[in-house]
């Protein structure tokens, strides 16, 4: 098909000489960089003074945005104190210029940057103790303290008129108010900042540790990375650069007022990072330019609308407010719909284009090949994550020997060929089928990772925040389709889950955990017992809990937690009680006790039970069992047939599954 076929032999040539591919990729890139550089150098020739002024301001913002990106995107810290660091850099540079005329301005600007870095280290110190929101709050406090200090200093020295800055000179080059000269100086500073930060993050051990820290601080600290120290370092480096920006800004504007550094300015810098894309340097730069030029855009819009018209007048009269609305809305919209910013958008677009290319390239062979072979051809090109996922998906999506047992009579619950997918394209199950007859205890057996929890969670419902969904199959309760209901809806229908972990509210007392079920939520009228009745009722089943009622659930032992969780579930008056791995992490004696309690609950209260286990310990109390393996139902029958010697268990759990 057209020229596409010509490109097919390409992989072979790449294999023959790996450098060929490298050169092909590198050359257009180098050419693009060269073109961009030439364009940047020639740009001022094509623009008028006031236009260059905007570009200069954008370049200044780029320095700050790159620095903030280091902190937010790479080190994973949110700072709302950027304006404070700018204020420090600017004020120190101004004070140096005021008191020591003979010093070169460059030294003043550097002094400002160093001062900002020192304050950055001080703010970073809470990072030795704090993380997350607490640290963000500390930067907010810093902003106001610095803002007071710089204002006060200005009032005490030069007064409300502000600092009059001398002309900026560097090695005999007097920039004065010439926007073109400033443009070139700022271009150099931006380039230096970019190269410095790229070296810092990409090539070094330091950079890798940072990346690790931003994604998984706990894992990073477990791997020996000193997270707190890294965070302080990130604060120091980013505040140095923002201080540098502040000093240059002071010289650029000529008259410095410390009132320029508002909280709104801080928010603008955060907007640059969000719009550009967290952790992307190119994104930060584009974000900085966009946010800086936004006022120009709004003004242009105002003047391009028909003059005298109501809308035009409105826009012209509200330019600053409209700017605020535009970048506020941009933050909101990007976070909601494009959380990885423009950089993420660009990545997705290039990925789509290359996918499209690959598809057209493969087309001639496409129809003749069975799916498995198509997947195999993909293996030859495993470079992209999408391709790798496709391979993994193709390999795992093929359900081998799944069965869909037919219930002998009307079941309370039936799941048919359930397929659970998690965000990121990972599957929890492929084709799980099971049924639960009313009044019985049903056992779901399978090894670790077989998909037991996914199955039970799919039946009891996923919360919207979990990023999991039922991608195929259906769940029926009393013959009614209830697939994809929320957990609270399912509780309302009498299906109650005792999850595998996080099964109690650790910050609440035992009594509060129980009261929660007795009165709140959708099963409000179900048990109808008061708060004190709840503890008594459950204490009838688990006497040990009565003495613990004032304790925080977080301090309970594993067995006590399990009792509390089952007790809380019972108060919701379940028709179907689902218990995920009752025995997990518990001593055999405790498991035995809990099993006999479940049996009692089943026989005396008539509660139907579905329970998942890794081993056949529960076989003695169950009437029906289902065995699942790699997300597929493989066997069903009465647990007695599992055999006393456990031939079936051995064949599945012993050989096939134990290896997983």
């Amino acid at each position: 098909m057209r020229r596409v076929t010509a490109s097919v032999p390409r992989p072979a040539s790449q294999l023959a000489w790996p450098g060929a591919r490298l050169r092909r990729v590198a050359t257009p890139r180098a050419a693009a960089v060269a073109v961009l550089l030439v364009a940047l150098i020639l740009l001022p020739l094509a623009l008028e003074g006031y236009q260059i002024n905007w570009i200069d301001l954008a370049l200044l913002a780029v320095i700050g945005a790159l620095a903030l990106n280091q902190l937010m995107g790479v080190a994973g810290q949110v700072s709302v104190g950027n304006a404070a660091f700018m204020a420090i850099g600017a004020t120190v540079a101004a004070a140096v210029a005021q008191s020591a005329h003979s010093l070169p301005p460059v030294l003043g600007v550097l002094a400002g940057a160093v001062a900002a870095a020192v304050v950055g280290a001080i703010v970073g110190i809470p990072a030795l103790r704090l993380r997350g929101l607490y640290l963000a709050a500390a930067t907010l406090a810093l902003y106001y303290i610095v803002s007071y200090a710089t204002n006060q200093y200005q009032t005490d020295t030069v007064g409300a008129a502000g600092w009059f800055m001398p002309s900026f000179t560097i090695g005999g080059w007097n920039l004065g108010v010439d926007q073109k000269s400033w443009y070139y100086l700022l271009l150099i500073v931006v380039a230096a900042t970019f190269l410095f930060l790229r070296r810092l993050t990409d090539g070094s051990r330091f950079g890798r540790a940072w990346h690790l820290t931003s994604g998984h601080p706990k894992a990073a600290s477990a791997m020996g990375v000193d997270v707190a120290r890294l965070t302080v370092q990130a604060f120091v480096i980013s505040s140095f650069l923002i201080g540098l920006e502040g000093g240059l800004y002071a010289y650029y504007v000529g008259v410095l007022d410390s009132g320029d550094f508002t909280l709104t300015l801080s928010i603008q810098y955060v907007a640059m990072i969000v719009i550009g894309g967290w952790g992307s340097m190119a994104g930060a730069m584009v974000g900085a330019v966009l946010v800086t030029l936004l006022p120009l855009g709004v003004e242009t819009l105002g003047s391009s609308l028909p003059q005298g018209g109501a809308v035009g007048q409105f826009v012209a009269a509200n330019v600053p407010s409209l700017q605020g609305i535009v970048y506020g809305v941009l933050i909101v919209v990007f976070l909601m719909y494009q959380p990885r910013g423009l950089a993420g958008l660009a990545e997705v677009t290039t990925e789509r284009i290359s996918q499209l290319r690959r598809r057209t390239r493969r087309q001639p062979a496409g129809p003749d090949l069975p799916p498995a072979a198509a997947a195999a051809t993909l293996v030859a090109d495993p470079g992209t994550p999408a391709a790798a996922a496709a391979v993994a998906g193709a390999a795992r999506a093929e359900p081998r020997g799944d069965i869909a047992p037919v219930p002998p009579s009307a079941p309370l619950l039936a799941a048919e060929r359930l397929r659970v997918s998690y965000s990121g394209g990972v599957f929890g199950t492929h084709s799980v089928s099971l049924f639960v007859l009313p009044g019985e205890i049903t056992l779901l057996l399978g090894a670790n990772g077989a998909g037991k929890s996914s199955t039970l969670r799919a039946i009891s419902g996923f919360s919207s925040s979990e990023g999991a969904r039922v991608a195929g199959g259906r769940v029926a309760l009393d013959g009614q389709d209830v697939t994809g209901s929320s957990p609270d809806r399912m509780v309302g229908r009498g299906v109650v889950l005792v999850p595998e972990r996080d099964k109690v509210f650790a910050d609440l007392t035992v009594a509060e955990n129980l009261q929660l079920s007795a009165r709140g939520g959708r099963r409000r009228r179900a048990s109808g017992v008061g708060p004190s009745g709840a503890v008594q009722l459950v204490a009838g089943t688990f006497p040990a809990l009565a003495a613990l009622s004032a304790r925080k659930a977080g301090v309970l032992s594993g067995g006590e937690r399990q009792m509390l969780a089952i007790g809380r579930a019972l108060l919701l008056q379940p028709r179907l009680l689902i218990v995920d791995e009752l025995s997990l992490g518990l001593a055999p004696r405790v498991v035995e006790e809990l099993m006999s309690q479940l049996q009692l609950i089943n026989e005396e209260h008539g509660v139907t039970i579905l329970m998942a286990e890794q081993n056949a310990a529960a076989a003695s109390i169950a009437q029906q069992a289902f065995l699942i393996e790699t997300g597929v139902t493989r066997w069903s029958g009465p647990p007695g047939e599992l055999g006393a010697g456990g031939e079936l268990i051995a064949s599945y759990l012993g050989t096939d599954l134990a290896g997983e």
Partner: protein
Amino acid sequence: MFPLLVDSVSIAGIYALSALSWVMLYRTTRLMNLANGQFLLLGTYLFASFLVQFGLPFPVALLASAAAIAIIGAVVYATMLRRLEGQGEFTIVILTLGLAAVITSLTTMIWGDQDRVLPATMNDRTFHLPLSATITTYDIVVIVATIILVGLASLFIDHLPFGLSMRAAAENPVLASQTGIRVGRVLAAGWALSLVAATLSGIAYSYVNVLSPDISEQLGLLGLAPAFVGGLDSIPGALVGGLIVALCQSFAGSYISAGSQDAVAWILMLLFLLLRPQGVLGSKRIERV
């Protein structure tokens, strides 16, 4: 000394209400809303409009503005924040920064940036106390109302069933949903209550002082300081924090300079963050590496 103490009482109550809005949100959602000040200003402007433009009687205007800001909070939660659940606290915090920018601009466009004086709704009398201290009717009303509101909030969150559901949803939304709690509603209610507390704080301040756009930062955002000082997860702590911050501010105001007052509050907060992050009354469970 004593007059300073008495003078601080009403501002302490106003700070306590602002702190209460941070504490309520943290207790019910474990989040910080950096647009809290902007919502506070919006609610207060709504109240002023109900009272002055629409000529509603004071109690009606008060209830109407509380209801309006509660609905706004619940709608913001349902349309934006709910969709970001499971994406980490920073995403939501930054979203609130975006909201702050939008609301600031909207309030400026609608209500301008002039200070407003609210019409008197009651006879403001000045009472003379020993040691030449004075206290006004407004001061007394504000502090009494604050104590009642903090008491009600504490009763609601710490002792009533819906408050229990809120605490459960804050700790573990998934498990709460599995316990039959309609988590979306509960969290929306948390946002609504938090914004109502902020609005009441703004209204009280506007009576004791003037209604200025500056209160979004100088009262709403500043409420974070008394919240941290008292303990971010303690409702009675809001009252304690409000009192401590107000006292320190009035001492700084009379011994250093009037301009230093805001800085003092933030320095106090930074000190607590460094030395006692759980605040005076909060529980000792802070996020550490």
